[in-house]
Structure formats: structure tokens, C-alpha cells
């Protein structure tokens, strides 16, 4: 199964230039989602990070993980997700292992640890080919909008 960007936009409130999920390439039950983000080099952040030596900022890899987590949340809690709640990041514990460059295809894998109506705890890792470039655990909150 594959979700394209239009389908992703139906779930995520994020939009370019702050949408860091291009495709969903795997959903394993309520447990795991794998997303892809192609880093093509045109991204605005490369102009400043860094001039002449473009490297994807680690915090944006974490953002891609957080956005993929919301796809997982939608799969696990469709009734809550369809009410369009507000999502907010509560805690991130991350390790950055290798730089990500223009031309890389970033695979973001998110595994649910605990998902409830009000929050989610997930483990995430980012890969370029077979190399793990970052891993993190994330905790996010879900606030119902009235």
C-alpha cells in the first residue's frame, strides 16, 4: 500500500514548506508506519544550513518523525483523529548518528509504544538506505478542539 501526499494532507494539518512526509509506504496494523521523505536539495532550509555545505537539520528529521507519528495516531485512533484535534509535542529524546544530505531518501519508521485518546508514546528511527541516521522516542499530546 502507498499513500500519496494528497492523502497525507487529508490527515496532517501541516503544509509546505513544513510538510516532511512525501509518501507512506507501509502500515502494519496499529503498530508501525513507514514514511518516505525525498530530500531533493531545493528545500529552503539548505540555503542557511549551511551555505555551500547543505545538511538537513536534525530537528527537521525529528519533525518528520513527529508527522509520521500523527499518521500512526490516525490509524490507531480514527475516531479521535477525525475530530481534527490539536497535536503537540511533549518530549523528544533523540540521537543523531549520521548527516542527511541533498539527494538522500529518508525513510521514517514509527512504532507505537502507547497510544491513548489523549496522548501517544512512540519510538522512531530514520534511515537512508540501510544506515540509521537518527533515532528518537517522542511523546505527544492530543487536545480535543471544541
Amino acid at each position: 500500500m502507498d499513500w500519496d501526499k494528497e492523502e497525507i494532507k487529508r490527515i496532517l494539518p501541516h503544509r509546505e514548506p513544513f510538510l516532511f512526509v512525501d509518501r507512506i509506504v507501509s502500515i502494519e496494523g496499529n503498530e508501525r508506519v513507514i514514511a518516505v521523505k525525498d530530500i531533493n536539495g531545493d528545500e529552503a532550509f539548505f540555503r542557511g544550513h549551511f551555505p555551500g555545505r547543505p545538511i538537513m537539520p536534525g530537528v527537521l528529521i525529528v519533525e518528520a518523525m513527529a508527522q509520521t507519528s500523527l499518521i500512526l495516531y490516525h490509524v490507531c485512533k480514527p475516531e479521535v483523529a477525525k475530530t481534527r484535534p490539536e497535536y503537540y509535542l511533549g518530549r523528544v529524546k533523540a540521537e543523531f548518528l549520521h548527516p542527511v544530505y541533498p539527494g538522500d531518501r529518508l525513510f521514517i519508521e514509527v512504532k507505537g509504544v502507547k497510544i491513548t485518546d489523549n496522548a501517544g508514546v512512540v519510538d522512531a528511527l530514520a534511515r537512508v538506505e540501510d544506515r540509521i541516521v537518527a533515532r528518537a522516542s517522542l511523546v505527544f499530546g492530543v487536545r480535543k478542539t471544541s
Partner: protein
Amino acid sequence: MTDGLDEIRQLVSDVTEVPVEKLTPDADFFRDLNIDSLKAIEIVAAFEKKYKIVIPEDDIPNIRTIRNIMEYLDKKRE
């Protein structure tokens, strides 16, 4: 009641960064220790992982103290 009091306090301390000595059996996580709801979910996730149990969502609001956790784990082991 379980004899794993120290183990439970240490695990809660690791997750919340509340010093172990403040984690008395009846201190309320929210009222007395300033632990927020996201940290509470992390506590639940940590206990599920360590003790290989599933804590249903409906039970989470009842887990507010170290004593609640000890009693909950004892019940799960029965």
C-alpha cells in the same frame, strides 16, 4: 503488596525526573509531584514494557500514586 517498591520508585523517577525520596507511596503524581498527563502516559508505557503487561486506557486515570502502581501490578499477577 509487591516487594518491588524500590524498583517501582526508581522506574517512576527515571521517567519523571522526580527524586526517588519524594516518591512516597501515597504522594499524588498530579497534585503533589507536578507530574503532567504526558509524563503519566510515559510512566504507563514504561511499566508495560518492564513488566510485559498491557494497562488498558480506562485504568490509567486510576494510577495516581506509587501505591496505586504496586496494587495494580499485584492484581495483574494474581
